[in-house]
């Protein structure tokens, strides 16, 4: 691949760094002259993004030189708080800012550290997310990560020890994309991924996009299939039915040899086990059950139902095969509105493209070759049954034997450590649903306001705060939060049920914000601690790289503007002032890998600068010769993953097809909750295999909420904090999809609605208003709200106020009971006003 052509401009010095405009950190170079940053480009030497850079990265100077940045600490003088209320900010010195913050938070810590709610959202410094744990707060007051990955990450980790997933750009020939912008506009390292996608298309790869909206991915695909939001799983279940029951084409060897699909399942859903506890398979040679490790793979039955001691057992594959019987394309068509003929056609095209049985040689080693894969992300699985969504997509890929195989669907590790691989039970890979932190043990009442102790395989369900904090007695919560720490997070924007979030914030006696701007949330702060931007700060970055591994450095390209500080320094100072610097350093020792290289352990009583810390991180990973200074000179130590690292990195360990551990985990949790837990806590999604089940969103449709509402973003904006940047909004404000609430042309004509007309969307959770924007490219039953128009408190932008999250509900009715994943679609009524 040829890196993008770079600028010939040389008036100044090019400094290598990484972008901070989204969570992924593409390599950049910044032209600096006389202490002024003049231009940002992609770093052509970094194989992650190959010199490419998305609009957000290109506009990064707008973050550094934003006239609305807060450049000095502030405290509020007006005790009254609320939207539109002037806080009466006065600038203060850092000493006073730290003194006030340490005093107020110190009081909380002395009384009960759980009383601190923390909303921390800097993805590129996940190490800082441990600060609340050291303070003593278990709380997570944000939907960050869960909004898109609440079910996604636990399933990825449970299947192959990965954190994310992507199809194989290099070798895939038939790419199904569901509810995702990968390779086109968003998600994993978009700058480099668009290059990889373009190259794949140039060599002939076909893309089929399933999406309620004609997104950029759908518009550039070979085929766009409109579908109803939250029904994508039904489409894929229908395709699975076609492969298994109609075409009878699936990769038997992969399923039999590389998964636990042949392991026998009893009628109670648990594996048949022998006296030693080993899972059993059906030995076709002797027609008896036998231990999984006593039967050669070719002698294991993949399908079938068998009698054992008067009871019936089936293989795990047979169990799903039987489930799929009534997931016919006709039935799935009713759910999705995608014609049954289309479901059948795409299934046939996919399995034909998969070339089951083919092989490929890479670096002298022969691999199975399956150049067809299904990729998916937020839109397809951030729903109330997100566990089942994710399991369906994984199992569908497994049907053609493409998981972690050249051409297929590949796991993407969290960072440089690679896949989390260790042997589990019965020859299996050990499930690793928790890669950001260990699961806290069950406790009733819970310590955390987001009830993490009740989600043993789940994610941090920050949306549950709106229930627990306003109705604590229902959950047995035995304390009342009084303070809040906001660090690069905007919970009033990112959490559902905005009015409830506002009520919670009203109850806070002290709020401290570490951020760059005033936002919907930080305007509630009592003290504002201004942070440095990504062009003024230091770290080593490596997060979810889809094709490479290694780190790139972020370094200051200019001196920090105004009187701002690196967030690491701010949190370290606060830890020292509150008397837990030793614990903070010990946490950094644990999460930074220093325990593997004890010579780099931080002394608990000593304060380390941000440079000293990252220097130790660099040397721990790359050796004494490659500390921070080496990285500042060279920019990165990023390389392509080898085939051995990318394909089947877990060797001969089997991956789960039948998820008995999910069933078992649910049963154990039920037992604990029966002994001491909330009455009626839902546990119905702890199932070993996916199937179609209506979510609450589907049920809401029966109550007169006729339309589906979705939120979306394209490459210009991420989260919503890029909406404050004029370079980006000047472009997005010219694009009709960011001008109002999208409504299908035929639907608008039927209802007599025209572009620019004011409309109101009302869901069971709330309502929003906005200008209608009539478009062709959206499903007739769907209304779309761009995140570009979702902000409510942003000076200077034209379109705002259609805050989509007001339509969502954060309760367990709209939450996956196993993963904690939230529902990101709403059913709404539409009216012209």
């Amino acid at each position, binding site marked *: 691949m040829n890196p993008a052509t770079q600028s010939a401009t040389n008036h100044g010095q090019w400094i290598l760094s990484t972008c901070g405009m989204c969570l992924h950190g593409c390599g950049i170079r910044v032209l600096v002259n006389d202490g002024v940053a003049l231009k940002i480009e992609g770093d052509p030497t970094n194989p992650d993004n190959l010199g490419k850079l998305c609009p957000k990265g290109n506009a990064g100077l707008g973050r550094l030189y934003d006239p609305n940045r807060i450049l000095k600490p502030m405290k509020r003088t007006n005790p009254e708080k609320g939207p539109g209320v002037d806080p009466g900010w006065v600038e203060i010195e850092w000493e006073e800012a730290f003194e006030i913050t340490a005093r107020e938070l110190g009081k909380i810590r002395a009384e009960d550290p759980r009383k601190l709610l923390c909303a921390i959202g800097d993805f590129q410094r996940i190490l800082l997310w441990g600060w609340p744990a050291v303070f003593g707060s278990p709380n*997570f007051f944000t939907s960050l990560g869960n909004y898109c990955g609440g079910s996604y990450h636990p399933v990825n980790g449970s299947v192959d020890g990965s954190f994310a997933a992507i199809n194989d750009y290099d070798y895939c020939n038939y790419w199904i994309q569901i509810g995702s912008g990968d390779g086109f506009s968003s998600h994993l390292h978009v700058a480099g991924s668009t290059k990889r996608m373009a190259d794949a298309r140039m060599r002939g790869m076909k893309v089929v996009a399933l999406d309620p909206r004609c997104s950029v991915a759908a518009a550039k695909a070979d085929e766009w299939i409109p579908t109803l939001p939250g029904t994508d799983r039904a489409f894929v279940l229908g395709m699975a039915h076609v492969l298994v029951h109609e075409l009878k084409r699936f990769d038997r060897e992969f399923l039999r040899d590389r998964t636990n699909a042949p392991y026998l399942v009893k009628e109670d859903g648990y594996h048949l086990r022998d006296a030693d506890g080993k899972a059993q398979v059906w030995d076709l040679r002797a027609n008896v059950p036998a231990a999984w490790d006593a039967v050669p793979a070719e002698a294991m039955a993949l399908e079938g139902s068998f009698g054992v001691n008067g009871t019936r057992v089936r293989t795990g594959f047979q169990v799903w095969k039987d489930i799929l019987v009534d997931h016919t394309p006709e039935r799935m068509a009713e759910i999705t509105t995608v014609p049954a003929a289309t479901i059948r056609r795409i299934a046939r095209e996919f399995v034909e493209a998969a070339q089951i049985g083919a092989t490929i040689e890479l670096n002298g080693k022969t691999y199975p070759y399956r150049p067809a894969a299904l990729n998916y992300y937020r839109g397809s699985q951030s729903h109330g049954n997100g566990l089942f969504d994710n399991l369906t997509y994984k199992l569908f890929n497994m049907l053609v034997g493409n998981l972690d195989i050249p051409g297929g669907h590949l796991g993407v590790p969290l960072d440089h450590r690679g896949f989390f691989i260790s042997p589990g039970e019965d020859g299996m890979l050990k499930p690793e649903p928790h890669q950001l932190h260990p699961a806290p043990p069950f406790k009733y009442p819970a310590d955390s306001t987001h009830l993490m102790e009740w989600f043993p395989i789940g994610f941090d369900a920050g949306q549950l705060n709106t229930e627990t904090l306003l109705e604590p007695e229902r959950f047995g919560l035995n304390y009342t939060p009084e303070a809040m720490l906001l660090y690069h997070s905007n919970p009033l924007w990112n959490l559902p049920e905005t009015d409830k979030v506002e009520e919670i914030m009203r109850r806070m006696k002290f709020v401290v914000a570490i951020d760059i701007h005033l936002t919907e949330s930080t305007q509630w702060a009592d003290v504002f601690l201004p942070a440095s931007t990504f062009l003024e700060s230091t770290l080593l970055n490596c997060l979810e790289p889809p094709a490479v591994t290694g780190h790139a450095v972020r370094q200051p390209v200019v001196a920090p503007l105004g009187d701002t500080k690196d967030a690491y320094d701010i949190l370290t100072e606060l830890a020292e002032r509150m008397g837990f610097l030793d614990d903070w350093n010990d946490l950094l020792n644990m999460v930074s890998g220093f325990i593997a290289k004890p010579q780099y352990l931080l002394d608990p009583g000593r304060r380390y600068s941000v440079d000293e810390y990252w220097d130790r991180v660099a040397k721990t990973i790359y050796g004494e010769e490659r500390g921070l200074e080496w990285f500042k000179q060279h920019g990165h130590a990023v390389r392509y993953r080898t085939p051995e690292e990318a394909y089947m990195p877990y060797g001969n360990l089997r991956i789960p097809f039948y998820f008995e551990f999910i069933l078992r985990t649910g049963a154990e949790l039920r037992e604990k909750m029966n002994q001491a837990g909330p009455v009626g806590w839902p546990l119905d999604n702890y199932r070993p295999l996916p199937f179609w089940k209506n979510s609450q969103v589907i049920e809401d449709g029966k109550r007169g909420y006729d339309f589906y509402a979705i939120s979306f973003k394209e490459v210009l904006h991420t989260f919503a904090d890029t909406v404050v940047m004029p370079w980006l909004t000047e472009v997005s404000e010219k694009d009709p999809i960011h001008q109002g609430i999208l409504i299908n042309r035929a639907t608008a004509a039927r209802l007599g609605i025209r572009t620019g007309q004011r409309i109101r969307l009302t869901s069971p959770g709330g309502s929003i208003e906005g200008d209608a924007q009539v478009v062709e490219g959206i499903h007739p039953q769907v209304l779309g709200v761009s995140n570009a128009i979702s902000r409510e408190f942003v000076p200077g932008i034209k379109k705002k106020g259609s805050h989509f999250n007001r339509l969502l509900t954060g309760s367990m009715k709209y939450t996956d009971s196993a993963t904690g994943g939230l529902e990101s679609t709403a059913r709404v009524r539409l009216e012209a006003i």
Partner: protein
Amino acid sequence: MPTVEIAALGATRKLLGFSRRTVEMEKGTVADLLRAMPTVEGNNLYAHLVCEGKLRGDYAIVVDGLSLRADQLERPLSGGEQVVMMAILRHLHGG
């Protein structure tokens, strides 16, 4: 006499009253080392970290960069090892 480098983090640091120490010991096992390490309140580290002969699930011991399984406390130590002991922080939340 052979020595072992000890690093104690978090709760184990507070139990022992130190963060780094070089400890002399005859050839023995990790379990022997834990028994030989007095805690500030007068007990020994083995009593705090071990339950029914296995390392408690809320603690970790790393020897020369490799984390021990709960049933590996009889791993021999011959001298020169770097041993890191720590309590696992459960609420390292993230997204």
